[in-house]
């Protein structure tokens, strides 16, 4: 048996992964949420994490990588502590998003897709982030900032560098800081018994209604 020290994913991540899998009728449904947890630990999805997630979920590492690589938020290459995603889709473009992106490139000294030398910032050009009422908008590690002027962008970067936004913007990989309290409240068997009883009662009411007014059910379902 391998010593726990040889495992890449921490005991905490493994415990949380087990809790997540218990929420679904099939454990593979927890694959993407568990990938988020691995990113929370490492800031990205490392090959060791992919192998261990495969073991945990009961699929092959190729299936984990094949799934993860489909999604923009799951990173198999290193990204900075702060992923700065500037939306350039239509609503933001109309309000100066490309000018903002150009400013971001020169302010950070990197092109879109690249990471600063100090590994603090990765710049992305994002598709619509659904905050168009405050265009142009951006996200830093999926936290929203709206109505972003070039001056506001500079101030934001300065605040992030100085660590003044640690409470608002967790390091890359941490998505949801609020955890579910407890697992499922009822077992599948309990739910099945409840539903079966409810269906019998519904059928009984339908029969009673039919007896009182022949054709009533027919009329209703045909409407």
């Amino acid at each position, binding site marked *: 048996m391998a010593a726990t020290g040889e495992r890449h994913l921490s005991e905490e991540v493994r415990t949380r992964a087990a809790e997540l899998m218990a929420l*679904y009728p*099939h454990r593979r449904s*927890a694959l993407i949420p568990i990938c988020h947890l691995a990113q929370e630990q490492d800031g990205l999805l490392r090959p060791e994490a992919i192998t261990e997630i495969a073991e945990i979920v009961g699929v092959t590492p190729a299936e984990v990588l094949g799934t993860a690589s489909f999604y*923009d938020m799951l990173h198999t290459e290193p990204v900075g502590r702060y992923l700065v995603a500037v939306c350039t889709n239509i*609503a933001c473009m109309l309000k100066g998003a490309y000018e903002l992106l150009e400013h971001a490139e020169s302010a950070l000294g990197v092109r879109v897709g690249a990471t600063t030398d100090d590994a603090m910032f990765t710049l992305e050009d994002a*598709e619509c982030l*659904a905050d168009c*009422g405050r265009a142009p908008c951006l996200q830093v590690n999926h936290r929203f900032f709206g109505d972003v002027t070039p001056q506001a962008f500079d101030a934001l970067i300065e605040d992030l560098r100085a660590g003044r936004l640690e409470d608002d913007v967790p390091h890359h990989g941490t998505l949801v800081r609020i955890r579910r309290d407890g697992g499922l*409240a009822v077992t599948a068997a309990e739910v099945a018994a409840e539903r079966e009883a409810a269906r019998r009662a519904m059928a009984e009411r339908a029969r009673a209604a039919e007896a009182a007014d022949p054709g009533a059910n027919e009329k209703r379902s045909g409407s």
Partner: protein
Amino acid sequence: MTITEAPKIVTSRLHRDDVHTLAGYLETGGYEALRKALTMPPEVVGAEVEAVSLLGRGGAGFPAGRKWAMLRKAPATYLVVNGDESEPATFKDHFLLERDPHQLIEGVVIAAYALQVAQAFIYVRGEFALGLERVTAALNEAYAHGAVGKDIFGSGFSLDVVVHPGAGAYICGEETALLESLEGKRGFPRIKPPYFPAAIGLYGEPTVVNNVETLSNLPWIVNNGSAAFTALGAGRSTGTRLFALAGHVRNPGVYEVEMVKTTFRDLIYAPVLGGGIAGGKGTQLKAIIPGGVSAPWFGPDQLDLPLGQDEVAEQGSMLGSGSIVVMDDATCMVRAAWRITRFFWRESCGQCTPCRGGSGWLEKILRRIEDGSGREADLDLLMDACDNLAPGVSWPPKQTTICVLGPSIPSSIASGIRMFRDEFLVHVKEGGCPHG
């Protein structure tokens, strides 16, 4: 210009900014509808929803009641909430998830009771970190309050609800792709038929997939009755709807207005709503994109069209996801069409050739026109490639692919060329964009 006095249905309590907490929600009448629904037989709750024409608020506009009726006769299994809002310029579900998550949870439990599903899942777009945190916190409170979990409010009805984060993929808003994603797979839309997850849904079982805003209407409908809901709006478009207004307007934002009784002009120009054209370099309206970037564009001559599903469809576009993008007269239409096409190219899942290959081809041609390297023949080439994606380039588009993403790509290109052909030609003749 008149704004109707219709009651607010899904934004009724948003004059307060604390209703995402249980305390704020309960003080504004929260969970009373659920208590009421649980005293009614499930089929009566279902009939109440089937009695109103609650057109799905996600984009397709399919009546929620008809979706439900398909499942009512089968042994019900799952309810899945589509909170993967990603259609460009659509930001109303994002708003509801963050501001009133308990209202959604109440709607979910009401729906689950009416449909007698075994379990409910709320799929939230991964980029909505705050939305995920708010819905998770609200769900924890709802369990502790007895509104979710075992023997809800002592009714004998039990239900577990699970919040599920996405991970960044526009296509997961397509309901069969969303189900694949919820099963822990790539978000590949499923081959149709079956057309509805009511037949084969999550884990192959009967499933109802409803949008966030759609379900957020249920507490009000249960509290006020189907007749009160149906009294609002007209025709099939009953009730109110959230519209996400963006682009060159003075007051961009999310507005709840009565369907059909409100027009595009009201929404864009009324001082209490959009407030008129502003925020760009122009002064006049040039075009609007109704219903998401999959929708064909409208010009200023269609401003007086009512905000109703069938009314907009009759004019060759769609109300779709409830987003309206306003473009002023200084906007480059080639650039607008290019950016929308670039979006589809980046988000194509890659399963079908017309979409995977066509989107990239169209994006490159549009980019070269915008950059000044275009040829006059490119206009015909664009339309020809569009014809491969959606034969006839008509609306609604003819289907050539597994899902509607591909056939939606021609909308902006065809709108641009048909409405602003001269502007495309100026780019070609002058060797660049006249808008700079």
